[in-house]
């Protein structure tokens, strides 16, 4: 027997075999992948991996008698939980990783990505040098040549077509300082065509929740979930997307909290739930109204809370009355009895927290979805309390921060918008004249017009010129930390990439942008450093800022993003103005200085108190913070909340401790308490928008009130509390109309200081809005997806009429009117794998992760598989309804998806409609694992408010390959 060869890696162990027996012969995903790993692809990848890594570490092992071991803390770059990474570094070489037990967020834990993050320091598959596409091949060039050639081309485009013909696509992977600098860069270039991943991640949340409560962010924190008595997850799969977050969920569950997971898939999170509600993709509003129907029917809502703190609930009641159990089941597929049980669980287990992610937000009507969830929380009185709230888990490690820094076509940093007042505010902070800023733009109108969103940049290239609300097409595309395969309509993206004059990719990896277009020239690749190679702060999903320290110097010829921004700004001729307040060491701007500048201006959301010194102190004293409340109980940070979660009112010297839970009236504002923001006026159609007799503990105004201005302070007689200097600053800013200067424009922060001194929230004390009159659907309505599976339901719940949005026409009805359901009978949705992240270029290049997931696949229900004639692990073609798109992937036959629904992960790229593009990558920089992108077959559909792309509900056809 010993002479017989055994394929060890095939999982042919006794245990695995025995367990396959247990699961009834069906293949689990792990076995599936392990076995498919034996196939040619896996072996190629394996043989392509020399044992070089082992040798590298050998020479650096501490036993080799090197130097002293230094421990350096940074933050994991893979998701928004904000896990601290503790690196052991010897002589500049990262030799080991230790668990970070002191961090209140991760308590030492990591997921597969965080536990393998040290591989970035090996970086064998990194983009190593600046490169240029010459005659279809990537050639190494110098940084000088790259910056000069790119700069010349950009200036030429600017000359001929105006600044709006260059699109600046930023990144949720940037630190706060880099994101802020990037937004500032676009402003100094003179365009609002700037955006980043938040557009296709949580833009609908930010808009929907912001318009309901006042701030568009996660209200509480993962730690605060310990206090929840029930957890209501919808379109969220933290077991794969935020694994360390699940630690906090399970902690609550073990304290007796009920876990309810609503998802079309039986996710790995659902496997740990008390209740899994499987519903049809794209019917979130119907599902929530179906639950609220039981609540209203039985009078289980919190009537006093609604009367005092909510506007417009009566309008909701009218809509909810239509969603009887029968109608809800017809639309969502969920039996009425189950929803009654869910409603009862929520009634009996308050406070409950509501958690959602991209399953909720990536729909053409997603602003309705997120507002419906908010309404559920408001109806039950669980918003603004510990253990409750809407705990919206963000995706990338700094997508919250980059959103806050306004890397968006609709606003300047900190949600000031694009009004003249906003521009004047930031010009003041930047130390340049308003007229200079105007001179950078084509005209004042374009300066105040939202740009093209990231989800549709390619429509800015392809759309007929007469349909564009800007002088010319997008002619240069800058991908500054962005994977193109995370966007839908792959074939249109390819077309646009081939049409633009210039493409620049600034990234640690070449990304799929380097290989998708069939071009001979006109692409530059610039190697950026990861966050592990630089200093800076990033904002975790719960609004806490954490300072990360450089673990190792940028490898190969990589440079940190802020240095590349400086080099380019210098070439383009506005570096002197742009870096007026920021010290530049050689060519590297100092991150601390950038943070200080943004602190000074970002008053609206309280990004003003988090000075670099305070953030560094928090990192040094992590162990002093409580794991549930996040409050430091001892040490130099005593009384402060970990990472000073925004709003951290006023400036650092005002010592605000941060706000752990938004809108929580049980604390004083000076201790992190709040109320709903009065952001929508004082009344609407005769109804008051101000809170009724609800106020934060210790407030001197014990009722609703509008936001604070200099004028309001005077009326209250509180202006005498302002110092002379504060008064002078306010009067200088206000000029003839100083009374109108609001707290958020007062660069002395005096108004904020005085309001808080009297116990009041600077932004006023208003009601949450269940009815958002300025949105297309003031009361959230169910609308069938554009690619709809059921024509009868389309007739009853149609989508919007076609319209214009963000400088472009946008289609709704004209797509939904066509019946695709005959040729494309299966609903297609997409999601996350734990091993990979985002477009996956970074993680698929990491051998420790790549080994675990070697093939792109599609999950198909056994009943559908039988009908199609497909067996597990067969190759299949997946056809999409647009552009004759098709992709070749493996079939994973599983009950995880329901009948008529298929699911694909979205992290793969490098194959295009059956063709392997490996040879097109720069030599040595191809990710280990390549695969088809689900977004090649994903289709049209954009949110009616934010232009969020629809990735979660479309149609497809599956055939055996």
């Amino acid at each position, binding site marked *: 027997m010993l002479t017989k060869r055994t394929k060890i890696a095939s999982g042919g162990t*006794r245990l695995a075999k025995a367990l396959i027996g247990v699961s009834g012969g069906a293949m*689990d995903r792990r076995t599936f992948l392990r076995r498919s790993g034996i196939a040619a692809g896996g072996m190629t990848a394996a043989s392509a991996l020399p044992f070089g890594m082992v040798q590298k570490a050998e020479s650096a092992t501490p036993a080799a008698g090197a130097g002293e071991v230094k421990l350096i803390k940074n933050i994991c770059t893979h998701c928004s939980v904000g896990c601290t990474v503790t690196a052991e570094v010897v002589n500049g070489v990262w030799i*080991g990783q230790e668990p970070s037990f002191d961090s209140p967020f991760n308590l030492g834990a990591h997921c597969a990505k965080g536990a393998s993050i040290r591989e970035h320091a090996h970086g064998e598959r990194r983009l190593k040098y600046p490169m240029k596409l010459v005659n279809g091949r990537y050639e190494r060039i110098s940084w000088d040549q790259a910056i000069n050639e790119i700069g010349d081309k950009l200036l030429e485009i600017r000359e001929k077509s105006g600044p709006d013909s260059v699109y600046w696509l930023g990144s949720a992977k940037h630190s706060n300082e880099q994101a802020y600098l990037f937004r500032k860069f676009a402003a100094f270039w003179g365009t609002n065509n700037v955006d980043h991943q938040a557009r296709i991640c949580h833009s609908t949340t930010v808009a929907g929740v912001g318009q309901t409560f006042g701030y568009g962010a996660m209200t509480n924190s993962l730690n605060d979930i310990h206090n929840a008595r029930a957890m209501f997850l919808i379109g969220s799969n933290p077991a794969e997307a935020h694994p360390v977050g699940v630690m906090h969920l399970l902690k609550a569950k073990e304290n007796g909290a009920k876990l309810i997971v609503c998802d079309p898939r039986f996710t790995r999170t659902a496997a740990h739930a008390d209740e899994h509600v499987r519903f049809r993709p794209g019917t979130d509003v119907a599902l929530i109204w179906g639950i609220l129907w039981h609540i209203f029917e039985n009078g289980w809502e919190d009537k006093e809370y609604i009367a005092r703190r909510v506007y417009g609930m009566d309008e909701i009641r009218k809509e909810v009355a239509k969603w009887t159990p029968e109608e809800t089941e017809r639309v969502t597929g969920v039996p009425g009895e189950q929803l009654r049980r869910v409603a009862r669980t929520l009634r009996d287990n308050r406070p409950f927290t509501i958690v959602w992610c991209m399953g909720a937000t990536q729909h053409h009507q997603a602003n309705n979805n997120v507002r419906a969830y908010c309404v559920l929380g408001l109806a039950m009185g669980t918003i603004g309390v510990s253990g409750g709230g809407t705990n919206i888990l963000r995706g990338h490690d700094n997508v919250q921060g980059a959103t806050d820094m306004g890397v968006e076509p609709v606003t300047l940093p900190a949600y000031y918008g694009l009004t003249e007042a906003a521009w004047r505010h930031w010009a003041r902070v930047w130390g340049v004249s308003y007229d200079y800023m105007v001179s950078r733009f084509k005209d004042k109108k374009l300066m105040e017009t939202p740009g093209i969103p990231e989800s549709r940049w390619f429509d800015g290239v392809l759309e007929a010129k007469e349909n564009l609300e800007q002088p010319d097409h997008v002619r240069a595309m800058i991908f500054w930390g962005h994977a193109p395969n995370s966007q839908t309509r792959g074939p249109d993206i390819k077309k646009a990439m081939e049409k633009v004059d210039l493409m620049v990719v600034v990234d640690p990896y070449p990304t799929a942008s380097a290989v998708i277009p069939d071009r001979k020239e006109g692409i530059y690749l610039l190697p950026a450093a990861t966050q592990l190679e630089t200093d800076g702060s990033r904002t975790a999903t719960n609004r806490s800022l954490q300072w990360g320290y450089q673990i190792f110097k940028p490898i190969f010829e990589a440079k940190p993003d802020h240095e590349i921004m400086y080099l380019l700004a210098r070439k383009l001729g506005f570096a002197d103005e742009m870096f007026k307040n920021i010290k530049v060491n050689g060519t590297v701007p100092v991150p601390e200085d950038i943070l200080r500048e943004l602190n000074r201006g970002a008053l609206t959301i309280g990004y003003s108190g988090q000075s670099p010194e305070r953030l560094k102190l928090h990192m040094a004293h992590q162990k002093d913070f409580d794991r549930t409340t996040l409050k430091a109980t001892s040490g130099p940070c005593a009384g402060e909340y970990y990472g000073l979660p925004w709003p951290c009112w006023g400036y650092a010297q005002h010592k605000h401790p941060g706000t752990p839970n938004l809108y929580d009236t049980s604390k004083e504002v000076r201790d992190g308490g709040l109320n709903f923001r009065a952001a929508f006026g004082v009344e609407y159609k005769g109804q008051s928008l101000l809170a009724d007799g609800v106020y934060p503990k210790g407030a001197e105004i014990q009722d609703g009130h509008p936001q604070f201005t200099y004028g309001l302070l005077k009326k209250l007689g509180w202006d005498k509390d302002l110092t002379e200097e504060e008064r002078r600053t306010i009067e200088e800013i206000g000029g003839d109309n100083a009374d109108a200067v609001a707290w958020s424009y007062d660069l002395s922060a005096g108004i904020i200081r005085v309001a808080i001194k009297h116990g009041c929230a600077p932004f006023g004390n208003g009601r949450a809005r269940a009815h958002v009159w300025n949105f297309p659907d003031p009361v959230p309505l169910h609308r069938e997806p554009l690619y709809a599976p059921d024509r009868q339901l389309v007739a009853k719940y149609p989508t919007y009429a076609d319209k214009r949005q963000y400088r472009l026409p946008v289609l709704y009805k004209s797509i939904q009117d066509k019946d695709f359901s005959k040729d494309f009978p299966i609903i297609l949705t997409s999601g996350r794998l734990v091993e990979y992240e985002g477009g996956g270029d970074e993680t698929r290049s990491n051998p420790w992760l790549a080994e675990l997931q070697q093939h792109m696949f599609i999950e198909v229900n056994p009943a559908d598989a039988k009908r199609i004639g497909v067996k597990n692990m067969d190759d299949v073609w997946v056809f999409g309804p647009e552009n004759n798109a098709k992709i070749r992937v493996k079939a994973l036959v599983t009950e995880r998806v329901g009948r008529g629904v298929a699911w694909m992960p979205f992290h793969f790229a490098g194959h295009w409609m059956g063709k392997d593009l490996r040879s097109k990558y720069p030599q040595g920089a191809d990710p280990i694992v390549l695969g088809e992108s689900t977004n090649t077959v994903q289709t049209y559909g954009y949110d009616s408010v934010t232009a969020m792309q629809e990735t979660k509900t479309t149609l497809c056809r599956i055939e055996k390959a």
Partner: protein
Amino acid sequence: MARMKFLLDAERCIECNACVTACKNEHEVPWGINRRRVVTINDGKPGERSISMACMHCTDAPCMAVCPVDCFYKTADGIVLHSKDLCIGCGYCFYACPFGAPQYPQAGNFGSRGKMDKCTFCAGGPEQDNSEAEFRKYGRNRIAEGKLPLCAEMCSTKALLAGDGEVIAGIYRDRVVNRGYGSGAWGWATAYPSGT
């Protein structure tokens, strides 16, 4: 003396594979060798559970019993280790092990087995603690540094526990108690499948 053990809390494991990559990271384990792996049963169905598996450092270890060259030895903490110098790569231990722990690098062109490799409980091998020779053959020796296995220390949900059997059993017992009695108790559904 402590008796080192692994304990996997299946109610907490979410198959995130942090244990797998933490192991690769700590010991620079090459592609194709998995000292630890996560196995999922009832994948995609109600009742789905995952467990992380590696060498369990058995008290009466079958690998030790069958090894023809007697390359295994046991530390005072109850950790089962082996000498790669003595190992002849025969694969007997692979047959004997109920957990599929022993791994073999494919060294040559004909798929011939190399020296056996397995989880060391982060305790290295017979060479001098934390020497370069030890690192080359077995990876880091965290036990000698006074630390516990990294897979458990980095587990995303604290499902995988490693350490003195008494201590981790205590942690686990507390959790079971916390989870409650009656139908909330761990294992209730197994003991009373009708759901009473």
